[in-house]
């Protein structure tokens, strides 16, 4: 055994992968910090009215959301008046669409008849750009949370529904035959056999839906709301307060990033077995 070989042995693939990930992680943030710095320099030099410097945006954000008393963990009232309602609508609408989409999707994925009857309607409805429904929903639902929930649910249900149908449809025939011999009832079959098998696809749909839900939350608040992040941004637009508008944009970006990371963590916990088994079999 040569020296280099022994050295190689100490660094197991696992630690090497971990080290590689850590370097990648730090590298990404370093690049991003550099980007912000460059942006700071560029905006300071350019003095363009529509592009406030990152430091101004940062100060505005602290001012808006982190200037509260210590008893509220320094969160300002605006957090509870605007950010929290926005988040609740976003998560509520997304969760409701997720549940309905998965239940309908499991049923339609396992019944060819049902799928054939409704597939034209579904493929038309999912093609409607959701913002086009806003003026209609504004009349049909009370302004505020009901109208926003309706917009979010209608807009984000399709990726979950279609992915669930796909996942439930492509179930291994052997599994179907085996469970048939066990005489599972239909609901139990769907919940204990089809659902787990379709989970990877369902999660893919849920991720697409989550970013779509963020978009629809913002746009519905821009149009018909009395509070929320989007409402604050439209107020800032009326005041020509560019730092406040940018603060909203940055906050929404952070929310989008954090929500996506959280969902990935959940996904790894719930269907980690799936990715692991896939990498083991080398597929």
């Amino acid at each position, binding site marked *: 055994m040569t020296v280099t070989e022994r050295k190689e042995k100490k660094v197991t693939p696992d630690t090497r992968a971990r080290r590689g990930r850590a370097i990648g992680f730090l590298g990404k943030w370093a690049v991003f910090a550099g980007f912000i710095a460059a942006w700071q320099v560029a905006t300071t030099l350019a003095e363009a009215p529509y592009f406030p410097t990152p430091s101004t945006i940062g100060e505005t954000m602290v001012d808006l959301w982190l200037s509260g008393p210590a008893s509220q963990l320094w969160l300002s009232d605006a957090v509870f008046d605007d950010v929290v309602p926005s988040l609740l609508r976003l998560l509520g609408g997304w969760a409701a669409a997720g549940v309905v989409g998965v239940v309908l999707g499991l049923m339609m994925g396992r019944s060819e008849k049902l799928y054939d009857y409704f597939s034209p309607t579904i493929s038309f409805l999912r093609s409607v750009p959701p913002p086009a429904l806003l003026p*209609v929903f504004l*009349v049909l639902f009370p302004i505020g949370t009901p109208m926003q929930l309706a917009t979010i649910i209608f807009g984000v249900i399709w990726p979950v529904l279609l992915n669930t149908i796909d996942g439930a449809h492509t179930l291994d025939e052997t599994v179907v035959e085996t469970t048939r011999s066990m005489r599972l009832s239909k609901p139990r079959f769907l919940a204990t056999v089809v659902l787990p098998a379709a989970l990877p696809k369902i999660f893919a749909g849920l991720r697409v839906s989550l970013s779509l839900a963020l978009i629809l939350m913002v746009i519905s608040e821009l149009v018909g709301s009395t509070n929320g992040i*989007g409402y604050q941004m439209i107020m800032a637009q009326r005041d020509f307060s560019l730092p406040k508008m940018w603060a909203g*944009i940055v906050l929404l970006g952070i929310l*989008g990033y954090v929500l996506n990371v959280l969902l990935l963590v959940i996904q790894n916990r719930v269907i980690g077995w799936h990715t692991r088994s896939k990498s083991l079999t080398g597929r």
Partner: protein
Amino acid sequence: MKRLVRNTIGTVGVLAVCELVGRSGLVNPNQLPPPSVIGARLVEMFNDYEFSVDVVETISSWAISMVIATLIAVPLGILFGSVPAVGKVTSAIVEFLRPIPSVAMIPLALIAFGDSVDAKIALAVFGAVWPILFNTVHAIGDIDPVQINTAKAFNLTRRQMLTQVKLPAIAPFVLTGVRISASIALILVVSTEVLAGSAGGLGSFITETGTGGAQMDLAIAGTFVAGVIGFAINLIFEWAQRRWVNWSDGDRAR
């Protein structure tokens, strides 16, 4: 054949239920008119010159932004994908910029551009660039090295390498990106139109007719037309994928 029959029965059934609900008095027929009324409005609307202009405005704004977005994203994607250092730096920045929902930019774009038609095209371009860029970068990285080395062994020029090896290899993934972008661009165009009446187009038509709820039949008919446009765009791209790049499963790169 069986499938087609079921498709028809299902669709007719859904419409019939809507019609019944609309006429039963369960809902206010002024707010939610039955499909037959909306159908009649649709026929009238297409004889109306101004409505046709709105539809053309929306479709052309969408088409212009898609062309611009593709022309920006594909060359950039090839560049980022081919030079690893540039690719790493930009992918880090892109990863942080991408979660920003593009509709959050609408209020800013409306005052920054002044003209709302420019604003809607700029926003749609901004939203549509990311999926195409991402798919192009991934596709370049995914090209089989054997293919590249073989081409090198044949002494292909850089230009030949690009047009004869790289572009055909990435085409399926790029097209998938373009398909995803197409619906995003449509959402942004319509959103801006809904928000700013001066942006014109179908979105403004829906807002004008829907406000106050006096002409809900027109508003819902307009929404229906928006759905038809979205549906047609989906169909065209699905067809294009089958027709031109059927040798590969481009959806893998998402």
